[in-house]
């Protein structure tokens, strides 16, 4: 909702006649917090602004390209995070945080500068890629709370972060590959320098002594380089060979080792042909492919972890009269948990004290906020809207409804993991075939061609070198990286590269309604109200964070906040005017017995001496939902709508979108069952959904998409997350998936064709090191250039979408 408000605000703090908050750009009325020469919408923003000025960092307001979010006045929670601090032997403390709410470069600058202004800080570095803040300071571990407090007062949320062992291993592997790539690249370039001299020299000018010298230097470079840069392949090949299986790394290792060995024996015999350049160049190309592959997978892993870290946010537990922050897994049934207004409930439980409304849309798909009071059951994942609640825990952590859904999801995902990727299917028969071919050609030359043992081995080695799956290994990862970056430019974050392959065959699309086809937030219906009254209502609504109030305020941007309005938790707002009291809230609060019942959310405005005004809200469709659905239908996809919402609302949405197959009140299990049924019919299903009730279905479908506004758990289950609220991401995702499959097939086909042409040459004994080098680099280049076409295609069609 704040996003809507921000969009309505003018671009710069001083750019228009409407006064806006100097910090976050929210339009201001007469209720202004004035402090330190600025005007603000709330104390939080005033605090952030004051802090920024005090630190001499006012340039932030010039640097930024996006407006800040309103800073929270409560200044974060008084948690003690000193146990997350690692103290180094030299007395330095080290802590890492995940920072949420970064918008642009100015945020990086501001956070880093504000922290560096502290005298004891030694290192403050915030990564724009991983959103991770690394802090090092000299002094006590407990300083961490002050430092985190600074970041929170600036208006960002931050949580301590500890990298788990899997992630550390992944990063170590990535670095190791990069180092190997650097070594291989250096060696390949220098050996090629020497080899080119040898090749041009063999025409006449170079004597055998010089050639041997060059081969000797090549060997000096190549041997350590192969030993170092080849390790990732050797290790993986050895691991699968011991299990009696084979993978793509086996022919790679054999090819590289044979090429090096044969060249070494040629060197010792002063022979004319050394393949050092081929061996190292192979490694270099293969490492590029391997690195790209790892990066695309690592990116997916990192985004999933980021989401998980925020799902595991600490819970505020009331114990012995004090509020303590505890990790979710240490909350026990029976514990009292406090939930502030606007916060997501972290446990399943029964409300002990407080009246409020909760937004259950992410769990049930139900769009209307539910009123809750003492004794009502609430579930983890609901958002508390109005007033603080105290909840008696009945289940926490994996025992919650959320945990149950996570288990169902894992089970569903296991089915999907059975999918074997195209490249692996090729690799399965590739290795045995090329090894057999090399062996047969060696034996053939020895027994039938009556070649010497040495020549026969040389020819067998040439076959292996030329078939070394260089282009084959590059064929898939390069296409994937290009596809992922094209998707990223359109705001679609791909989490699993295999998903693109699975999505290429999709013929059926299942949509969730709330939050996917719709915005997931209510919008005021235009019932022809009196604009003056509407402005009055919006003025009151500006004082509240309730979703209906925010929708009302967004619908009426000209309104000025009503300064003296008072919010009564769970009921509404009231404003004392000379004519009497104006009230905005639910029907009873506004003095109406009960309104007409239809499928809309409602607010009532009661103005003295006038009939109470009923304001209706409905969850609006995304701006491009109708066009996108029409486009998908034209493209021949079978479309289904599965929602947990009430039949009336679902029918209305289905009708306006023209989707004929729909089902309402579908719970998580039902949704997954429908998808399983479709798959049984032989359909390939894409699921698009955002809620907890979609998570199982997202995991069960062949491919899945989730909007970035969705719940963490849905984003984790989905293969890709799209940002920006445009449903056009769905056809775009499918288009790129099909392009990805086409190019991967072309590339694999080309790589195999290359082998078909090159192998006979090698078998005939015609492959010299020069031919091997040219053939290998040419085939790799063709594969890479072909993959880039996917990216070019993207920029050509940029205009429309």
């Amino acid at each position, binding site marked *: 909702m704040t996003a809507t408000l921000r969009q309505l605000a003018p671009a710069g703090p001083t750019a228009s006649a409407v006064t806006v908050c100097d910090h976050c750009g929210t339009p201001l009325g007469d209720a202004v917090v004035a402090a330190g020469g600025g005007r603000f919408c709330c104390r939080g923003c005033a605090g952030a602004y004051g802090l920024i000025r005090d630190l001499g960092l006012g*340039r932030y307001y010039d*640097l930024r390209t996006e407006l800040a979010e309103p800073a929270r006045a409560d200044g974060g929670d008084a948690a003690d995070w000193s146990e997350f601090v690692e103290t180094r032997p*030299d007395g*330095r403390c080290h802590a890492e945080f995940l920072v949420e709410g970064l918008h*642009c*470069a100015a945020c*990086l*600058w501001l956070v880093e*500068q504000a922290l*560096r202004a502290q005298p004891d800080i*030694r*290192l403050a*570095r*915030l*990564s*724009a*890629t*991983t959103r991770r803040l690394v802090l090092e300071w000299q002094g006590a571990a407990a300083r961490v709370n002050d430092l985190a407090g600074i970041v929170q007062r600036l208006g960002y949320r931050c949580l301590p972060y500890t990298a788990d062992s899997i992630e550390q291993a992944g990063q170590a592997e990535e*670095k190791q590959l*990069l*180092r190997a790539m*650097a*070594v291989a*690249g*250096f060696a390949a*370039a*220098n050996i090629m*320098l*020497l080899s080119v001299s040898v090749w041009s020299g063999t025409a006449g000018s170079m004597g055998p002594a*010089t050639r041997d*010298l060059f081969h000797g*230097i090549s060997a000096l*470079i190549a041997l350590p380089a192969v030993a170092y840069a080849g390790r990732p392949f050797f290790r993986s090949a050895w691991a699968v060979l011991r299990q009696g299986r084979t993978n793509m790394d086996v022919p790679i290792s054999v090819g590289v080792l044979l090429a090096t060995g044969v060249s070494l024996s040629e060197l010792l015999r002063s022979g004319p042909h050394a393949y050092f350049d081929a061996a190292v160049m192979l490694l270099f190309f293969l490492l590029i492919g391997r690195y790209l592959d790892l990066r695309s997978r690592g990116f997916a892993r990192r985004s999933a972890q980021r989401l998980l870290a925020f799902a595991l946010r600490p819970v505020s537990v009331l114990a012995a009269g004090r509020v303590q922050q505890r990790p979710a897994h240490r909350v026990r049934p029976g514990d009292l948990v406090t939930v502030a207004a606007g916060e997501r409930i972290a446990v399943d439980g029964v409300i002990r004290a407080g009246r409020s409304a909760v937004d259950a849309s992410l769990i049930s798909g139900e769009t209307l906020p539910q009123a809750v009071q003492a004794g009502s059951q609430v579930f983890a994942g609901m958002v508390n809207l109005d007033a603080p609640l105290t909840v008696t825990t009945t289940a926490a952590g994996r025992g919650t409804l959320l945990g149950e859904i996570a288990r169902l999801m894992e089970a569903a995902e296991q089915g999907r993991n059975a999918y074997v990727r195209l490249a692996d299917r090729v690799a399965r028969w590739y290795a045995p075939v090329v090894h057999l071919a090399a062996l047969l050609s060696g034996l053939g030359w020895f027994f039938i061609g009556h070649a010497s043992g040495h020549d026969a081995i040389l020819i067998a080695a040439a076959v292996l070198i030329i078939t070394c799956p260089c282009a084959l290994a590059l064929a898939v990862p390069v296409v994937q990286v290009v596809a992922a970056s094209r998707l990223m430019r359109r705001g679609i974050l791909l989490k699993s590269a295999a998903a693109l392959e699975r999505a290429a065959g999709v013929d059926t699309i299942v949509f969730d309604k709330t939050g996917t086809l719709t915005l997931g937030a209510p919008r005021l219906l235009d019932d022809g109200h009196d604009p003056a009254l509407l402005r009055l209502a919006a003025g009151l609504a500006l004082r509240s964070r309730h979703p209906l109030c925010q929708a009302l305020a967004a619908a009426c941007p000209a309104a000025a906040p009503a300064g003296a309005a008072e919010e009564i938790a769970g009921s509404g707002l009231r404003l004392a005017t000379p004519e009497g009291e104006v009230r905005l809230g639910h029907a009873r609060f506004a003095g109406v017995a009960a309104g007409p019942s239809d499928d809309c959310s409602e607010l009532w405005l009661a103005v003295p001496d006038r009939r109470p005004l009923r304001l209706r809200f409905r969850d609006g469709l995304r701006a491009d939902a109708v066009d996108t659905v029409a486009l998908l239908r034209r493209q021949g996809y079978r479309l289904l709508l599965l929602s947990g919402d009430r039949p009336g609302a679902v029918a209305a949405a289905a009708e306006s979108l023209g989707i004929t197959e729909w089902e309402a009140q579908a719970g998580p299990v039902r949704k997954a069952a429908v998808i399983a049924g479709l798959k049984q019919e032989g359909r390939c299903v894409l699921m698009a959904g955002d809620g907890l009730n979609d998570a199982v279905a997202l995991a069960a479908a062949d491919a899945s998409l989730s909007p970035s506004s969705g719940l963490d758990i849905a984003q984790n289950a989905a293969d890709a997350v799209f940002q920006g609220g445009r449903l056009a991401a769905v056809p775009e995702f499918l288009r790129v998936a099909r392009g990805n499959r086409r190019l991967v097939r072309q590339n694999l086909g080309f790589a195999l064709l290359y082998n078909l042409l090159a192998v006979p040459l090698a078998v005939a004994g015609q492959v010299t090191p020069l031919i091997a080098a040219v053939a290998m680099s040419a085939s790799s280049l063709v594969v890479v250039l072909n993959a880039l076409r996917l990216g070019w295609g993207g920029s050509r069609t940029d205009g429309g979408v």
Partner: protein
Amino acid sequence: MDILLYLIPAALGLGLIGMLGFLWALRSGQFEDLDGAAQRVLFDDADAEARAGQARKGNRS
């Protein structure tokens, strides 16, 4: 062909410097935040000095 005695070591040495430079950059974390690096270029004020001081301190320890 005596020139080779200078040329080959010179070529290898230059290549080696490049590779060591890359390995150093990798070790000092310059490839960890490519998005941030692209944006940091735009901050051009006094804090550059502070950051240089930071880096010196970081290297000493």
